[in-house]
């Protein structure tokens, strides 16, 4: 009998990838295509959902070709995606209503500030586990419903559908206008601000608060679930799991036990801790979210620290400043100097996420003297990612009253050796990278493979986890404290910059 494989599609913020894994969780082939990012106005970030769908149409066959296998050898497909980003489309034509609105988009800044003073605003966080912020889908969806003429009527008539990117891809893969399934998974639904975090159903109070028609929303399903077979692109493959990218990374890192934590370094960075069946409400600016839900079982909760800008700061350094040609060269440039020279960069491009939640904060470079070179700036770019991690780790420790001894990392930025060392230094813990850096895709593959019995159980998946690299702290504690104090001062300088001021006081959490 021919060897069998699992396929994952990772619909990310900058690109979409299709990866084939074998039963030992080893990478067999990777196909990838980037999509465009549109910034029609300051603070607006959009993508073309049709371009993303076309990319899937190309990379699925390519991944099979590169692996030298047929569709009949793929036992399951898992889909993982950038979270909160959504698109609204016409169910009769399949055509999107405008572009997808991306999680980084801050067009709803004023709307969110205004909503925060409405009756019922205090209950939002209790119901969905998330603070009222531009980051999540509901405010942007509300904005779209207000902005596009007739859209609300069409939504109430059931003519247009809402979906995060998992929903958009599953609908298209299972037939689109010809009977495409309109479903989402519980982790993606937990990022919309419309799902009740305790019941895992669309919450009538939240729907009414944001004024969103129930009819346009997909059915919420568990993470591992046989959704149906693909009928397009590569027909006949069982879609057996869907989950948000950070939840997939938690799964791919096999953080199945309570207290296990991972941080994924990509466009933004996201630290998630498995809190088991316990729903923990953070008092330090973290989010309560769903880790995953295996079909037929209760949900596993997670606590999340979201950092908006990490890898995208390197991209900005490359594309907008032109100081490097490729993202990895940031390390080469940073190594031309031995320290930051007193310079700090706080990348509050769309405000600051966890643990601050200051949507009015804006980025800054501080500590400039005539001594500073582009090497110091490069180092400050890398250090910004490390200190932002430190802030989130500190918040998590404060919520739990204990300190984690190691940090499991994954994502594209883990290829940056200097960055990983700096993170170990500023956290004062060991940083561990697993053998599959593509943890997001692997997590989607794991969930799908588990659903169809390709892998028997969670313990079997755990045995696939191997350590690929470990960085241990080497920084002098006094130096660390001084640098952290400088970083904190720099962060405070970013607050209140954008006017009018709409500060979400972290004391509200």
């Amino acid at each position, binding site marked *: 009998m021919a060897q069998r494989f699992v396929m994952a599609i990772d619909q990310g913020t900058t690109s979409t990838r299709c990866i084939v894994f074998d039963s030992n969780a080893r990478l067999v082939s990777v196909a990838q295509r980037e999509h465009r990012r549109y910034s029609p106005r300051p603070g607006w970030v959009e993508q073309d959902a049709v371009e993303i769908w076309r990319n899937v149409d190309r990379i699925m066959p390519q991944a099979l070709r590169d692996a030298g296998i047929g569709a009949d050898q793929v036992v399951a497909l898992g889909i993982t995606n950038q979270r909160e980003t959504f698109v609204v489309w016409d169910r009769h034509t399949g055509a999107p209503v405008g572009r997808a609105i991306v999680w980084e988009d801050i067009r709803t800044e004023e709307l969110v500030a205004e909503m925060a003073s409405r009756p019922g605003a205090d209950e939002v966080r209790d119901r969905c586990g998330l603070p009222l912020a531009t980051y999540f889908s509901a405010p942007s969806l509300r904005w779209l419903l207000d902005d596009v003429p007739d859209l609300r009527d069409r939504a109430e008539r059931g003519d247009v559908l809402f979906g995060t990117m998992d929903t958009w891809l599953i609908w298209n893969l299972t037939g689109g206008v010809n009977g495409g399934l309109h479903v989402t998974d519980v982790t993606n639904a937990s990022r919309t601000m419309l799902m009740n975090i305790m019941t895992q159903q669309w919450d009538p109070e939240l729907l009414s608060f944001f004024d969103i028609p129930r009819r346009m929303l997909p059915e919420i399903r568990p993470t591992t679930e046989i959704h149906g077979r693909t009928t397009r692109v590569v027909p006949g493959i069982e879609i057996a799991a869907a989950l948000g990218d950070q939840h997939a990374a938690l799964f791919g890192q096999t953080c199945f036990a309570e207290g296990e934590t991972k941080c994924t370094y990509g466009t933004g960075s996201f630290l998630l801790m498995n809190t088991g069946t316990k729903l923990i409400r953070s008092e330090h600016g973290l989010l309560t979210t769903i880790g995953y839900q295996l079909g037929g079982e209760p949900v596993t909760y997670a606590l999340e620290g979201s950092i908006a800008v990490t890898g995208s700061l390197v991209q900005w350094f490359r594309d907008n400043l032109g100081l490097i040609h490729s993202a990895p060269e940031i390390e080469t440039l940073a190594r031309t100097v031995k320290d930051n020279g007193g310079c700090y960069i706080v990348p509050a491009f769309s405000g600051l996420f966890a643990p601050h939640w200051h949507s009015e904060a804006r980025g800054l470079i501080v500590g400039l003297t005539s001594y500073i070179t582009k090497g110091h700036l490069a180092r400050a770019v890398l250090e910004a990612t490390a200190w932002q991690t430190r802030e989130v780790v500190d918040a998590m420790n404060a919520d739990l009253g204990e300190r984690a001894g190691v940090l499991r990392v994954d994502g594209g930025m883990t290829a940056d050796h200097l960055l990983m060392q700096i993170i170990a230094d500023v956290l004062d813990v060991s940083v561990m990278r697993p*053998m599959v850096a593509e943890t997001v895709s692997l997590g989607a593959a794991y969930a799908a493979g588990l659903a169809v019995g390709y892998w028997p159980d969670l313990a079997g998946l755990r045995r696939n986890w191997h350590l*690929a690299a470990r960085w241990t702290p080497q920084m002098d504690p006094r130096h660390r404290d001084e640098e952290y104090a400088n970083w904190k001062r720099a962060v405070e300088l970013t607050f209140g910059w954008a006017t009018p001021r709409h500060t979400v006081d972290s004391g509200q959490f």
Partner: protein
Amino acid sequence: MPGPIQSIERAAAMLRLLARGSGHHGLAEIAAALGLAKGTAHGILRTLQRVEFVEQDQSTGRYRLGAALLHLGTSYLDANELRSRSINWADTLAARSGHEVRIGMHLDGAVLVVHHVFRPDDTMQTLGIGGMLPLHATALGKVLLAYDAGLLATIRRAELTSLTRRTIVRPSALERVLAEVRAAGWASEAEEYMPGEAGIAAPIRMPGGLVVGAIGISGAVDRICQTANRPRQALVDHVCHAAEAVSRSLATDN
């Protein structure tokens, strides 16, 4: 003996054209200047752009000489870029072979370890990125020497240090081994660097074939080799496969 290759002559003419005058030329202008059809000129420009000898201005669409031409012969691939492009395949090689993986590039007469993946047995190991290894006594180094005659010449003049009783110290013996490496497309080493240890490595190539680095595994000699210090064929295949995958990833635009 074949005659001159027309497209290379045309590419050379294009570079000369871009090197003089304003330095910024539109496609029509270049095609007209060289008496080429626009489609032909465009194809050559696209290829030159791919190897970074030519750049296209995003806003005007005009062409100019690429920055890569300015440092031809110094460094053509950033070490951190190589790590980033190869990380998936280095992981896969470690998982498949069961051995630790290193990627090396040449630096100052030695092998600079630009990437290191632990042996997948979860034992305590130390990250070796940034370390230096001898060229003549490691599989990674032999690959780098085999495809770089200039580098070999500098080594020949230096004394080949004996690290174990098996280290190759005679230049003629080393040259014979390197010829074998070129013929086979991979290199190996058994107890030439450290007693009890062995390694296998294969070349990482840029599009066009230039060897920019080497990827290899190392471990206990009895696990890497079968008899008479000959490496196990299955491991050789894994290493060569990984080297090809990394080379392929260097050929795709990211």
